[in-house]
């Protein structure tokens, strides 16, 4: 990227991340049904007064093994940190939280069994925490049959699309469709209008394919290639050849154990973004979704070429990207250092753009339980209806990633997104979207479905 462009980008995305702005974003949302507006003071320990000692049992469906294991580990750490913190401030409605974790092997078959096991054997109150979208798809019908609320942290568009049932909620992580909608225009106006998509041959990838294409059609940009990478691929060079010459931007997103290889081979093939001359006189730009690099140190060998390229982040990995008090509190409590790695091992990089969803979802459950007066499984209906009545969550310790708008119709939340540029071996936030940037017309209405 040349200097002029850089200035332009900086101007456009001028960031003023003072505490006041953040709070005012929340304030803008104020109105009927906004909950969780008070910042919870960790010092004010409520005794488990009102409630019984009987804990609220939350079944955690974790990807401990299989392709989701890297995310699973961070989801587990975040969940445990959140549960510990919630218990330290008096639990949920005065009752302590108990997390019961079962591994689903990142497999939908086993996922459904795990939901069943958690519900019927461990007799949990809620099931929670699934990430991979195919596991959600496989597990959700079972949750619906068992009539147990199922809170996912998956960022898939499956919930909002209406494909699932009324028991499934995605309350605290924005879905892929909204993420793409929010950043697409920024890509087209700042990086270029001819975009080649590279995505995994999964539903997650199809969302990228479909909604990036839709956004392009709207704003007059052109998709020059759609390259779906099969899940079994371990070598990627050959697929890069298919990118046509009139391309300005490579839009890439990848998941699974092959991510680093993918990015590295991209670097080998195209060289550093600035030098690359192959595609006519223009410079080829890269825009990636952070999924391609979750858990990966940006300073790994072979990634030097990423310098100057842009990434979408849901929550900035580096502490200076979004320096709010709540963010800092969250980061410290989970045990993450300023560069997004584990405090105990700087080589252990977190899945920072996803795991906040676990933290926030537990707080959302807390809100719902407390507001609905949920006591036991027979109160599910009230709980679900209360939840559907929520219209958002305010930023704060409970929601450190930012305020959320929640749609009772789609059971889905919408939050702000970040665009960061890689510079000097770290991510630097250059643009923050508003929640409105990512909104779309709801395609379903779960409140009309039966319970």
């Amino acid at each position, binding site marked *: 990227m040349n200097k002029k462009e850089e200035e332009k980008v900086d101007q456009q995305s001028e960031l003023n991340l003072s505490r006041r702005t953040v709070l005012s974003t929340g304030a803008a949302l104020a109105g009927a049904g906004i909950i969780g507006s008070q910042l919870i003071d960790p010092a004010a320990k409520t005794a488990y007064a009102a409630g019984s000692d009987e804990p609220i049992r939350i079944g955690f469906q974790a990807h401990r093994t299989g392709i989701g294991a890297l995310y699973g580990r961070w989801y587990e750490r975040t969940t445990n940190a959140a549960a510990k913190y919630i218990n330290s401030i008096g639990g949920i409605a005065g009752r302590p939280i108990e997390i019961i974790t079962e591994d689903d092997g990142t497999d939908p078959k086993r996922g459904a069994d795990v939901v*069943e096991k958690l519900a019927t054997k461990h007799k949990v109150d809620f099931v929670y925490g699934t990430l991979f979208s195919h596991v959600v798809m496989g597990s959700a019908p079972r949750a619906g049959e068992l009539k147990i609320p199922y809170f996912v942290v998956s960022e898939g568009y499956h919930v909002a699309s209406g494909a699932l049932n009324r028991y499934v909620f995605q309350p605290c992580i924005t879905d892929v469709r909204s993420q793409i909608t929010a950043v697409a225009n920024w890509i087209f106006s700042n990086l270029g209008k001819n975009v080649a998509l590279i995505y995994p041959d*999964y539903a997650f990838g199809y969302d990228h394919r479909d909604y990036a294409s839709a956004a392009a059609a709207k704003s007059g940009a052109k998709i020059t290639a759609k390259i779906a990478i099969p899940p079994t691929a371990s070598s990627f060079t050959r697929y890069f050849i298919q990118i046509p010459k009139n391309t300005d931007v490579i839009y890439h997103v990848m998941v699974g154990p092959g991510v680093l290889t993918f990015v590295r081979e991209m670097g080998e093939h195209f060289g550093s973004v600035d030098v690359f001359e192959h595609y006519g006189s223009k410079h080829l730009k890269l825009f990636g979704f952070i999924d391609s690099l979750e858990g990966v140190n940006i300073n790994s060998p072979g990634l030097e070429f990423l310098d100057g390229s842009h990434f979408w982040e849901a929550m900035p990995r580096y502490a200076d990207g979004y320096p709010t008090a709540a963010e800092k509190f969250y980061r410290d409590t989970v045990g993450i250092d300023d560069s997004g790695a584990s405090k105990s091992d700087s080589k252990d990089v977190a899945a920072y753009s996803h795991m906040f969803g676990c933290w926030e979802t537990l707080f959302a459950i807390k809100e719902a339980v407390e507001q609905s007066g949920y006591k036991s499984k027979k109160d599910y209906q009230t709980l679900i209806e209360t939840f559907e009545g929520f219209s958002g969550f305010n930023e704060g310790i409970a929601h450190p990633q930012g305020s959320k708008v929640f749609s009772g119709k789609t059971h889905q939340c919408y939050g702000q997104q970040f665009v960061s540029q890689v510079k000097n071996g770290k991510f630097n936030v250059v643009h923050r979207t508003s929640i409105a940037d990512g909104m779309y017309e709801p395609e379903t209405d779960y409140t009309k479905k039966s319970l």
Partner: protein
Amino acid sequence: MRRKSLKYALFMQGGVLLLLFLLQFFLPAYHHSSFSKIMILASYAIGYNFLLGYTGLMSLGHAMFFASGMYSAGLSIFYFGFTPLEGMIFGTLFTLTVSLIFGLFALRTKAVSFLIVTLMFGQTFYLAILYYNEFTYGQDGFSLTDYLGTLSILGKEYLYSDPAIRYNFALILLASYLLITTLIVLSPVGRILIAIRENEPRTQLLGYNVFSYKLFALTFSGTLAGISGAMHALLYSYIGTTFAEIHHSISPLLWTLLGGAGTIIGPLLGTGIMFYLIDFISGITSNYLLVVGVVLVLTIIWFPLGIMGTIRQKWLKWLP
């Protein structure tokens, strides 16, 4: 001997089925649903065993048949508005066709080559589901919950996902698989299949068209797997590529070998043991596959014939 076998076998299976029928009134919810699952998967394994245990053909692509039944039933209900029964019938016929065509090609190869060809075909089928994701919903799959409607029995309406429906449908499936495979195995046709397993060239020289018998066994086995898949789709209303992956082909092999290849009841036993073993161990460690591995190695060293196979060799000679 054969008639005695048949009589004893039917008695024993009848007993097992009766026990399973009665158990549904006593099992706690979790085990109730586990048993349903085991019975469905066991029926898949019984179909697999028909090919491996009685014809001697080891396939590593059976997930293809399971998935083809599951997807053809599921997609026809999802897109064409078929009723669940029509979906089942369509799924059965579709899988029958798939396995017949597959057999015509794959049975040109033998032994390890056959193994690889089944594996490759299975892999191709899996990739095809991914490739046509606009139609099949790719890896995510889709849910039939809103498309199945209810089932009316004696004037009452039931959901397919109702635990009692699930249990009894699985039981009926299992019972019919046990009965039909027992009858075939103990019929003259079964005798020929076993002969092929034992000594294929000699069977040819006894005047049998070995190819067509193998084709029959493969088609039958594939169709059984397909019906299990279709039934799974109805009862669990989720359809996804996880059922087409290679792991889902290895599973019936393991269940069958553990329970005893070439015994009718073995696959049921193997499936049940493996299910509960994994269930139990996954509560202790997430590395439950480690234990699966150890069990496999020990079984093959100490009980190469599987549990029922060893029992037959030692005590119950009549066991089919």
